[in-house]
Structures are given as C-alpha cells and as structure tokens.
C-alpha cells in the first residue's frame, strides 16, 4: 500500500516500474525463445548457409542471406508468437479495420468483408497466354481422344454480391470470367461452379470458411457432385456408382466446433474474425485403395486401405491441437506434385485432375468413381511438363480444377 501511495506522487517510481517490467520482458522473451526454439532457429540458419554455399554466393551475399534467415526464423519462432498475433488482431478489430496489412503487402494483405469473412487482396492480370496454353492442351488431348473439362472453382468474394468494403476491388472474379470466355471461344467444356451456386440458390458465404480462403468440405462435396453428375451425363467415359457416391446419406459427417483458424486467420489472429467450425465427410460404405504419394522426384510413399486409411491425415483432425492446425489439409495432407490413386473396387475409368489446393477435399471424392485417379499440381510438379506427362500416360478425362486466386502465367499446355 505504501508503494502504491508513493506511485501516485513519485513520477520517478512510475518510470522505475516501467523500466523493471521492460527489462523483465525483453530478457524473459529473448531467453524463452532461445530455450524453446533455439535448435529450430539454428537449423534454419545452417540450412540457409549450406544453400548459400551450394549456390556459390559471394561472402557478402552469404552473410546477408544468413542474417536475413536468422531474423526471419527468430520472428517466426518467437515465444508466444501466436498470442502477439492475437493481440494484434484484437487491436485491428477494436479500431474497426477492414484492411490488415502485412510485411508482404502485395500478396498478404487481408480484407474483412462486410459479412465478416476474410479474403486476400487481388490484382488484375492478363490471362490471354494462360488461356492459349489451355487451348493448346485441349487440342492435344483431342488428338488422343481424351476428354477435357475446365472447372472454375468458386471464389470467396461473390461475383453477384461483392461484400468488400467501399474502395476495394476484387479482380479474381473478373479474371475467372475472362478465362472462361476465352476457353468457351475455343469450344472447351467448362463448368462454372460460381454459376451453379446461383442456380442452386445457395447462400454464397456458407460455402467458405470465415478465416480461410478455401471452400468448406460440404461445399467441396457439393462441387464434386456437380462435376461427377455432369461427367456422367455428358461424357462417354466409364463412371461408376454415381448414385451412391453423390448421396450424402452414404457418408459420415463429423462436425467440429471452433477448431480451425485458416490461412487468413493465422495472419491476423483469433480475435480479429473468430475461429471456424470444421466438417469432415468420409464414406460409410466399403472402399479399398492403393495410393502413391509423390513428394518429389525420388521420394514416394505408398498407402493401402480404405478411403480413410489412404486419404485422411488424422493429425489434422486432432482437436487437442491448436486451432492454427490446418484442418483443411485433413484430406491428403496438403499439396503434392503428384498423387496416383487406384480404387480397387472399380474396374474402369482413368482420369487426371490438374488442381490447386481447392482440389484437396474434392479429388478424394472423385476417386470414388474411377479405377485410377491421378492428381497433378502444376505449382509443384517439376520433373517434366504436363504435356510430357500426358504423352507418357493415357487418360479418359483430364479435368482442370482452378480457383481464381491461382492463375499463373506459365501454365503448361504447349
């Protein structure tokens, strides 16, 4: 009490208190970071050094590279980092901010839409050359009598009800429209899931997570149903068990509450926009698979068993793990250069899905209807071009599933 009384009148004492807290804070957080993450930081620095030496960098460049890596890894491994990100996000919310900037201002600025969902900034891009590549691919596939469909995944910002704050533009839907227009002019089969959402009178925001840019599992399942029904109805290729696989009653639907802080949420913390629920859907009917994950050119791993055994990565469903765990990766575990899925309960049908991350909860369901489903990610597969891969392998159908965030200039098709 005496101390509190003195605090009232003695300015110096107030400053001493601040100094003591400051010193305790800078020492304790520095030491804690070193003790808890020192080895991770050290490993990253050593890796950066070895990579620098391997790339024959000059001494100055090598040193600067190592220093930058040290600073970056210290930041990312800082003790209680997530708590500080939460404080930051809470402060942004208190200020009513709808635009949360990042050190990487171009790619990582987060917008909060009027419906409370988060999205990332987007920029205009000329897709003429990308479309040309896709058209060239289609012509090649025609020559091999292989069917080709381009599926436009829905985008989090609705084309018909733009929820962005005044002054912000969305270019992703514009890019998607332009791309589809160019493809239609070349008579390519397209499925625009954005339009299907409108036709089915679905509430657009229900399809997406609040804090992640991806679609929810039920939305991906709905998208799968749309696509497989289209294929079954319009293409002359073997498709099995559509009636069974498109009936949600034939699946376990597990719902987990307040357990998922998505990619955008991890940039701004839990307090900014909350935390998502997560729904996990998997078959309740018998399945049997052999699956090869191609992690890189030389590293593969095989899995055998049911849909759950081969497709599901249980660590992402561990609800004791923090919300920052990437629940979306529960299907397949993430993006890989190539996955080869053999459905042993089906005799025919071979498809190639060229996808981005929107394919994670989509392609597993597609594999229920074909003997072989291969999943190819243009962003990660570097061993050969897509065209070279197609020259070496025969498919009944090649299906592109792309979300508008991911249009790249150099999609292979030539």
């Amino acid at each position, binding site marked *: 009490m005496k101390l509190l009384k003195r605090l*009232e009148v003695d300015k110096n004492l107030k400053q001493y208190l601040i100094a003591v807290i400051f010193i305790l804070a800078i020492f304790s957080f520095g030491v804690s970071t070193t003790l808890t993450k020192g080895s991770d930081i050290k490993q990253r620095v050593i890796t950066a050094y070895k990579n620098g030496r391997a790339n024959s960098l000059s001494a100055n460049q090598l040193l600067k590279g190592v220093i930058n890596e040290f600073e970056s890894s210290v930041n990312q491994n*800082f003790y209680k980092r997530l708590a*500080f990100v939460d404080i*930051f996000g809470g402060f942004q919310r208190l200020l009513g901010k709808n635009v949360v900037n990042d050190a990487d201002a171009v790619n990582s600025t987060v917008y909060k839409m009027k419906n409370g969902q988060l999205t990332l900034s987007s920029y205009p891009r000329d897709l003429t050359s990308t479309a040309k590549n896709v058209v060239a691919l289609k012509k090649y596939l025609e020559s091999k009598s292989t069917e080709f469909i381009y599926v436009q995944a829905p985008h989090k910002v609705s084309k018909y009800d733009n929820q962005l704050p005044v002054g912000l533009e969305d270019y992703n839907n514009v890019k998607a429209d332009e791309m589809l227009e160019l493809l239609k002019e070349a008579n390519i089969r397209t499925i625009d899931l954005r339009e299907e959402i409108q036709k089915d009178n679905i509430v657009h925001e229900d399809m997406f997570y609040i804090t992640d840019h991806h679609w929810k599992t039920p939305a991906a399942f709905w998208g799968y149903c749309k696509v497989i029904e289209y294929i079954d109805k319009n293409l002359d290729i073997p498709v099995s068990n559509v009636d069974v696989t498109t009936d949600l009653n034939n699946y376990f639907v597990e719902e987990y509450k307040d357990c998922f802080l998505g990619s955008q949420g991890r940039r701004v913390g839990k307090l900014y926009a909350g935390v998502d629920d997560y729904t996990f859907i998997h078959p309740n009917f018998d399945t049997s698979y052999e699956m090869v994950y191609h992690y890189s050119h030389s590293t593969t791993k095989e899995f055998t068993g049911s849909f759950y055994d081969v497709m599901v990565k249980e660590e992402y469903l561990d609800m004791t793990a923090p919300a920052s765990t990437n629940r979306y990766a529960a299907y397949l575990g993430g993006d890989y250069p190539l996955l080869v899925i053999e459905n042993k309960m089906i005799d025919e049908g071979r498809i190639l899905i060229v996808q981005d991350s929107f394919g994670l909860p989509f392609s597993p369901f597609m594999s229920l209807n074909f003997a072989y489903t291969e999943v190819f990610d243009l962003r990660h597969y570097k061993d050969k071009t897509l065209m070279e891969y197609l020259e070496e392998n025969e498919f009944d159908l090649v299906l592109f599933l792309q979300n508008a965030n991911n249009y790249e200039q150099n999609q292979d098709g030539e």
Partner: protein
Amino acid sequence: MLFSSVVFIFFFLPAVLFMYYVPFRNSIKLKNILLLFASLGFYAWGEPVFVLIMIFSIIFNWFFGLLVDKYREDKFKSRLVISLMVVFNLTIIFIFKYLMFTLENINYFFKTNIIVPNIALPIGISFFTFQNMSYVIDVYRKDGEVQKNPLYVGLYISFFPQLIAGPIVRYQTIAEEVNHRKENIEDFSQGVCRFITGLGKKVLLANNMALIADKAFAMGTDSLSVSFAWLGVIAYAFQIFFDFSGYSDMAIGLGRMFGFHFLENFNYPYISRSISEFWRRWHISLSTWFRDYVYFPLGGSRVKTKKRLVFNLFVVWSLTGVWHGANWTFILWGFLYFVLISFEKLVNFKDRFGKYNVLTYIYTMFFVLMGWVLFRADNISHATEYIKVMLGFKGTSIFDNLTILYFNEYKYFLLFSALCSVPIIKWLSTKIKNKNKLYSFGYVASYLIIFILSISYIIKGTYNPFIYFNF
C-alpha cells in the same frame, strides 16, 4: 539491424545491457570497449562489408584529431589538417553518395558517355561522416578533449543508438561522458520510457501513415484524386515526422540507458508559424550542425550586406538539400527552404506577421507540405504532377472511394498522429493537479500498452519501411 525488430529488442539489447551492467559494471574502459564492439556488430549486421569503410573513416579521423591537437598553435598546419580532414570525409561521402548522380548528370547535360559505376550507399554514411567532422572540429575549437584512444573515438562515432538515423551527436555533447559518466536508475528508467515512446511513434504511427503515403505516391497522377493527394502528403508528413522523431526518441532513450545524454532532435515542428521556426524545431541536430560549422564560419546573419546574407543562406540550404540525397528533388527541396527563409529574414517576417497566428500557420504548413511532396516524389516531374493534382490543376476527380477507404481505415491513426504532433499531452499532464491512483495506473499502463502493441505489430510482421536509405 533496426531498433523496431525482434532481434534488436529481445536479443541484442538485453545482451549488451547484461554485459554492461553485470560483468563490466566497474570498469568504464571495458564498458566503452563493449559498446564499441556492440556498435560495430550492430552496423555490420546490416552492412557486413561497409563496416570496414566506417572503421577506416574512424581511424583516419582519430588521426586527424591527434594532428589538429598537436598543431593547434600553428595556424597554417592546423588549417591544413582541418582542410585535409574535410576533403577526406567529403571524398568518402561523395564517392558513395554522389558520384553516380554526378556522372549521370554530366552525361545528361554534356552528352558524354562516362561509365557510371553502380555503387551501393552504406547506411548512415551521412550521419557518421558529419560526426567524424564534428569530432575533429570540436577538438580544434577546444570544445572537447582529444581522444588518444582510437577506441573511444570509434565509440563516439559508431555508437549504435545514433549511428544509422541520428541525431547527429556533437562531440562536445558527450566528450566528457565518454570518459566519465555515471549511470543511475532515473536516467535508465527515463531512457526506457523514451525508447518505448519512440518505438510506438515508429511502429504504430509512422508505419501506418506510410501505408497511405506509399499508396498515394505510387499511384499514377492521372488516377489520383485531389482528396487522396492531400491525404497522401499529410500522411507522409506524419510518417516522416514520427519515423524520424521516433528513431531519435529511441536513440536518446538508449543513450540514457548507458549514461549518455543526447540533445533533443525534434520539438513539435508542426506547430511552427514560420519556416525559420520550423527549422528550429525539425531535425535540430542537422540544422545546428550546419549553423555552427557552415553558417557561422561564413558570417551567419551578422554580415554587412543582404547579398552576403543571402549567399550564406544559399550555401547552407543547398548543402542541407544535398545532404538528404543525391536527387534533384532534394536539391530543389533545399532551394525551396532557401527562398522561404531568405524571404522571412529579408522582410522581418516575425515582427511583421507574427501576430497573424492562423495565417502564418497556414503559410508554414502549406510550404512544409509542398516541400514534403518534393522530398517524397521519385523525381521533379512526379512532384510537379502531384502538386498539380493537389491544387486541382490536373483535372482529376476531387473526391473518390479510395479516400473514403483509407480515411476510414486509418482515422484513429490520423487522429493520434495529429494529437501527438502538438504538445497537448504534455500540456494536459501539467494541468492535472491531483495525480491520483487512476493517473498513476494510466501512466504506467499507457507505456506498457504502447510497448505490447508495438511488439505485436513487429512480431506479426507488418509493413516496416526503413526510410533512411538515402542518408
């Protein structure tokens, strides 16, 4: 290494403080050596090669100091040493900072084809060069004892708190403290509070204002609305003030933590009612450096003719502009202030117009903002077009959604920036007579909140521009 970084706040600073106050606490010599090597390491962290330039410069200036002290009674020799010192230091800064600009302009104006080498600019070269010169001149003028120990000269010049962004510390300010200083808890605590204040200014205010300013100045002027142009330059005025003064606060605070007392570098410049007053409040260490080492030796204001006065002002303000960077925009910026200050001196501005508070304030802030457009723009053409937009001469829209968006997003930052630009908090504090528990709690809580929020911004990884790359 930046002050507003995790590595500095949670690793470098605690390590140096620990070594300073624990094993080396009883030896001023060891403390100084620690600070010197910590400072060299601090600089080398960002400039692993250029640290050698700084060491080279320190050694030569130490030697010049010894010479000027030895020959101080011999007018010719001492002036020769001073001249050599000036030439040496200006040559270094010329090569790294102005050579490319000079050659490019020679090629442009004289249609020559001289090869322009690509020379990187060592961070802080303008600051440590001026400190080097200050050391030798102050020794010559007997404003400070010569340092026989080169390590102590090295400490003065490279001391990490003021190395990369000032303030320009005059040797006379800390000469005594290098050898004899007494750290105490009051200074240390005040230093911590000052550091936190500076950190908040830089991270919470300056970095957020930078987002508006960078957007406005990156846009093509054909699509820039009048309102957003004004918002952009006002944001830039806040950005540069809080970035610079924030860094100065952190430098002063850090100095205090180690027992050094640097002079103030900013004194609420945005309350000025004349350009002359503005420059008595803005970057005080630079303006006083030029005043004491250039203006006064030329005769200052106490000259016989107005022509000579104008000439003296021209020299000082040309050098001030050039010091800020090798670009015509900085030269024109300096020239703008030369014109305004000459005008004020010649018309006896303060006596004649001093009573018109509002008008003189508007006049001052208008030209300061115009000056900031020049300062921030990529080139003179860009600055001209930007000013045309501001004045409505470019025919772009008056108001747009972008202004609404940015104003809404940053309204609280703009408000706090405006409040912190004037001494209102200081004034309020003096008015509160009954400083009770609530006040005490608020006082301590404010600092801690500023610190925690600043750290949260740093750790999250928000936009953190370093604007002193020209210096």
